[in-house]
Each structure stands twice: as C-alpha cells, then as structure tokens.
C-alpha cells in the first residue's frame, strides 16, 4: 500500500497519507487550501460518521470532517 496514490476518501481509518494533488476548483479548492491542504501536507483519516460519510481527518492539528465528494477530489499518497 505504501507509496500508492488514492483519492482521500479511500484512505482507511487510522492511516496517514500525503496530499499530492487537488482536483477540485473554484470555491471548494479555495476552502481546501484554506484548511492547509497543500501538496505534501500529511493527513490522517481518524473517524467515519455512523453512516460512513463524512469522514473526519486530522489536518494540521485540527480535526475536519469532509464529505466523500470533497475528499474524493484530493489525491493522496499513502505513507
């Protein structure tokens, strides 16, 4: 699994990965950047909500919940 690139929503809970590419654009892209999701940022999937979506991620010291639509447009490389 190490080194392979996947969309963030496919990152298993408890695993860490490095941001490689943001595929979203417009306001959503800006929001993701504002949260600090720039290339090489390490994120960790920490918790899925009861119905499996959204998922909470540990990003730069904060816990942020993202829906699979947004997380799916962030490509990460598994650590």
């Amino acid at each position, binding site marked *: 699994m190490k080194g392979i690139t996947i969309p963030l929503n496919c990152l298993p809970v408890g695993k860490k990965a490095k941001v490689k590419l943001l595929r979203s654009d417009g306001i959503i892209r800006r929001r993701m950047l*504002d*949260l600090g999701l720039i290339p090489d940022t390490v994120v960790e999937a920490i918790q899925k*909500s009861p119905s*499996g979506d959204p998922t*909470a991620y540990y990003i730069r010291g904060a*816990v942020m919940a993202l829906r699979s639509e947004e997380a799916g447009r962030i490509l990460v490389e598994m650590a």
Partner: protein
Amino acid sequence: MGLTNRSTGSNVLQEELKIECAPGDKIIALSGNPNVGKSTVFNSLTGMNQHTGNWPGKTVANARGRCRHRGRNFIIVDIPGTYSLMANSAEEEIARDFVCFGNPDAVVVVTDATCLERNLNLVLQILEITDKVVVCVNLIDEAERKKIRIDFAELSRRLGVPVIPTNARRKKGLNELMDAVYAVTNGKIRLNPIKITYDKAIEQAVEIIQPEVRKLTGGRINNRWVALKLLDGDEHIIGSISRHTGIDLAGNANLAALLGKAKQYLAENGIKPEDFRDKTVSRLVTVAEELSRETVTFENRQYNSIDRKIDRVLTSKIFGLPVMLALLAMILWLTVEGANLPSSILADFLFGIEKKISEIILSSGSPAWLHDILVHGMYRTLAWVVSVMLPPMAIFFPLFTFLEDLGYLPRVAFNLDNFFKKACAHGKQALTMCMGFGCNAAGVIGCRIIESPRERLIAILTNNFVPCNGRFPTLIAISVIFFGGAIGGAFQSAVPTLAVTGVVLFGIIITLLVSRILSKTVLKGYPSSFALELPPYRRPQIGRIIIRSIFDRTLFVLGRAVAIAAPAGLVIWIMANVAVNDISLLKHAADFLEPFGRLLGMDGYILMAFILGLPANEIVIPIIIMSYTASGAMLEFDTLKDLKQLLDANGWTWLTGLNVMLFSLMHFPCGTTLWTIRKETGSMKWTLAAFAIPTAAGIAVCLIIAAAARIFGLA
C-alpha cells in the same frame, strides 16, 4: 422565486460596518478562526453576555461592546470567526470588509493555542492587510493540559507584533492583552510585521500595478494587498472597495492596462490564473507551518488521544445515533421529572397570593371590572406562564448549554450529515437546527454559517420544524397530562418523555423531508461542499453554564413571554366579556373556527389560541386556559391535574392532545422569527413561504391523524 442577491441577505450585512463612536474612542476588531473562544474574550473584555458555545460559527454578526482601559474607551467589535479572509461566504465577507474598510484602530486576532498552526494562516492574511495587529493566543490552559509549549516571545519576534497568551474563561492575560492594544493604538510599540514574499514572478507582477493602485487608493487601503487581490482576479474586492470607499478601480483604464500587462507577465513566467491563488495561499500555509515548527513544541504527541476515544463512541457506527437519541431523551426526562415539583410550588404560591392582590385592588376603590381585567385577565395568565414555563426552562437550558460547551453539537452535525446530504441540504443545517431548539429566530440568523444561498434558504425555511423553548413547555405540559398516567411510580415521566422525544424526532424527519422536497422543486440544486471542524472537547464550566443559561436565556425567554402574556390576557378577557347579540366576541371567533378545528382533531378555541399566539408561542396554552375559563365555569387550577380536569371538561381526548402537540411543532413561526426571516432573506415571498410551509405541513398531518382516528373508531 429565484435566488438573487436580495434574497440572500447581503444587503443586510452592509449596515453592520458602521460603528458609532465618540472622538478619541478606539475601535478594536476581534477576529479569529471559528471556535477559538473569541466570544469569551469579547464578553470578558466588555462585561457583556454574547452567547458562547463550543462549536464553529456561533457568532455570525458583528457584536459590539465597550471596554475601558487606562482611561481610554475602546469599542470592541466581535466579527464572525473565519478560517480565511478570502471571502468565500457571507460571514467571511463581513469579517474581511470590517478589517479592510471598518477602519479599526487595531485588530486583535484570537487564536487557539492547541491548534496554532492553522490559526496562524489567518493571522498572516490579516497582517497582509494591516500592521496594527495584536495576536491573542487563547485557551492556554487547554494547551498546558495537552502539554503543548509555545514560545510566545519568539512568535512575537517573528510575527513582528505583540503576542499575548490568555485564558479568557478565567480572565487571565486580558489586562496584558489590553495593554498591548493600548500600546498599538497609541503608536507606543514599534511594529515590524512579517513581510511575506511570493515567487519572483508574482512579486514582479505586483510591482507592475502597485504604483497605480497606490495612486488611486491613496493611503486608505494597503495597496500591496489590493494589488495581490487584483492579480488574483477577485472581483468581489473591487465591488467592496467601491462600495465602502467610493474608489472605482474597475473603471480606471490605466489600471486595467497595467493589470493586463501584469497578468501577461505572469503567464509568460508560467503562472496561469488558476495557479496564482494556489501559490499565494500555499505560501501562507507554508509560512504558518514554519512559524509553528519553530515556536511550538508538543511534549506529548498523543495529546488528543482522549478526544479520539470519546469520538470513537459518540460518532461510532453502532453507538453514534443511539447515544444521540438517548442524550435527547435524558435531557427531556430530567426536564419533565425535575419540573414537576417546582412547578406546583410556584403555582401554589402565585395563585395563593391572587386573593391578596384582589383585596389590595378592591380596597383601593377600583371598580369591579378593572379588578377582573387585572386579576382574572392579566395576573392569571402571567401566573400560568411563570409557573409552567420557568421550571422546565431552568432545567432544559443549562443541560443543553452543557452539551454545547462540551463540544457535542458539531458531533451531532457529523452524525447527521449524511441524512442532510441525501436531502440535498447542507451538513451545517444540523447545527442551525440545534440552535432552533433554543430559539428559531436565533436559528434563522445562525443559517448565515451556510455558504450556499440555496442551502441557506432551505435551512431558514425548515428551522421552525424544531420546537423552540417557547414550545417545549407546551409539549411537556400536554404530554404529561395526556400520556403521563400510563405508567405509575418511578417511571411515570417515562411515557411523556418518550412522547416529546418522538415529537422532536418527527420534527427532524419532517425537516429532512421538506428540505428534500424544496431541493427537488423550487430550490433545485446539488449539495455544496462541506467542511466541518470537530473541535476538541472542552471541560464545561458548570457554574458559568448555570448562570449564563438562566440569566441569558431563561430570563430572556420568560421576559418575552410575560411581556406578551399580560396584554394577551387582557385581550382575551375583553373578548370574553364583550358580547355581541348576547354572545361574547370570544365565542363568535371560536365558533367561526370550530368546524375547521374539529376537522383537525382540535377545536375552535385551540386554533384561535395558535393564531393569537403569533407574537409568542409561549402563550398558546395560557390563551386556551383563559378562553375555557372565561367562557365556561371559572375553575381554580393550580396544578397540571386541575388543568387536565379543565381540558377534559372541554372535550379533550388523547387525539386533541396529540394534535395540539403536532400542530405546536408544525405551524407558522412566531412573529419574531418571521420578522427575522424577512430581514435575513430580504424577501417577502420567502417570508410567506416560511409561514405557509410549516402551516400546510401541520394541517396535513393533523387532518390525516384525525381522519384515521375517526375511521378506526379510536376517538
């Protein structure tokens, strides 16, 4: 009914920029990320009681307060918490416009010591606009508990502005904070703010247009920042500049030519328009990362492992939703169970002194009719409102505030988000819904945290489907009367609790259903992006919670109820005692509504009470009692048992009780809420929709239940 600028309320936001102040007063903007204790800092500085809670997005409008320090007046403006000043949403625009155009004498950026890196991003963005910044690192107690060490002196040296550690909840560090603000506003500190430099090509492009920008704006706005925004292609900022300063950047041919040249230069150097923002934002994030790496040490890498363990239960697949329901039921049970005794003691007392009041009024030589109006009309309604409403509110509010302070509400939004997504609505609607439990008008204002106008309107239109505090006492009283006798002994509160919990759940289901219907019809669209912060759990301060929730919320709601109940009691008494053709006005009105009321499983008096209760839902039950007692036998009632007798005597069955509860859940919002919706949406049409949608839903549900009950011979 289209989505226009008018209907999304941006016109409302404009008026919030103007601050009145005396000469010599200093204006201080209080900014920061959501949920960093900004409102607590505000309250501690100003002695005001702006509502606080551990969830992002609670402050959505600029609140103002005064503070005196070293003989100087400061006007503190609490602007909405934002992650960024890129103006992605209405609240970010308010925050940015105030920092840019509100001419604050200083900006205090409140940051969270436990999450400094992310917070520094906003500090850096603000430092690009203004030099007069004081950084307040709040929640240092939480950071200490988590063994996070911050080198404040080094951070201050690197940022080039004062950095003050505070624990606003315990009022620690606030004097030092105001000292720094005082020094900054009086020019007593040499500020040397960090200069963020971008790629060479970007810097060159800035240099191409900056002189022209400087010429046009004078010294009124930071021209390097404006130049960066122009290169970014941010059109909002051009509009904001012309609106607030009268400077027309868009119409200037010189600037347009230079801007074209600068953009061409960027393109030639490999920076496409869409890369520009990435590069500038990334640079800020990287600088924040460096600053944090050099000034913050985590002595315990597992510092938030307890939070994760709690979350693993509270948001787990198995326990998440059941725990949520159980917490709701528990709060309601404690409220129902706990309110019984104080309610009857209060009623005994208030109705006990009624005779004394009668004697005093009659002995003062007042005519009998005046005595009747004052005592039977106004006083009895008041006594009812106080004895029935005060105890449940004094229990419910602190319990709810406890969960709010703890940080549970964002978890509710996290748990429920998927349902809202399926309803094509915004996940934060769960938060505005929770605010509605307190007060629907507050919930409607809270909808400003939702960025997309479409989803914000959906949240506004459906907010009324959660019962506010004005309606909880009605629900509780009726469920105790009609569903309380089912089981005796220690569990006698269980059934009414379940009934109220059921009604709340039903309201949430209707919220989702109506949201979905709206999304598929008049407010077509897809759910927008959603990023919700799950803040660290914080230890609630019990003493504070009790004081805050009783003084800020309970007494406020009760005060409003009393203010409306007294005149309403008067109106009812007059209607009951003024006769036309030997029949009182009250009976005329009730008779007119009777057929429709019957159809809905209620009666004419009840419908009239809901209509007369438009100013405040709190007085619906008192009006029902007033009308029954005024038109029939004058009963002395001072407990819920007496009330049951009165209702039974007027033909109430379990069906009446159930439908009154459901109609209370689903009918037109109160006057205050409607007025707020009008203000927030800027549209009469949407206000009417907000009136019509819940009313139609309530009528439909009551009709179906009444018809079904009759068909099956149950009532």
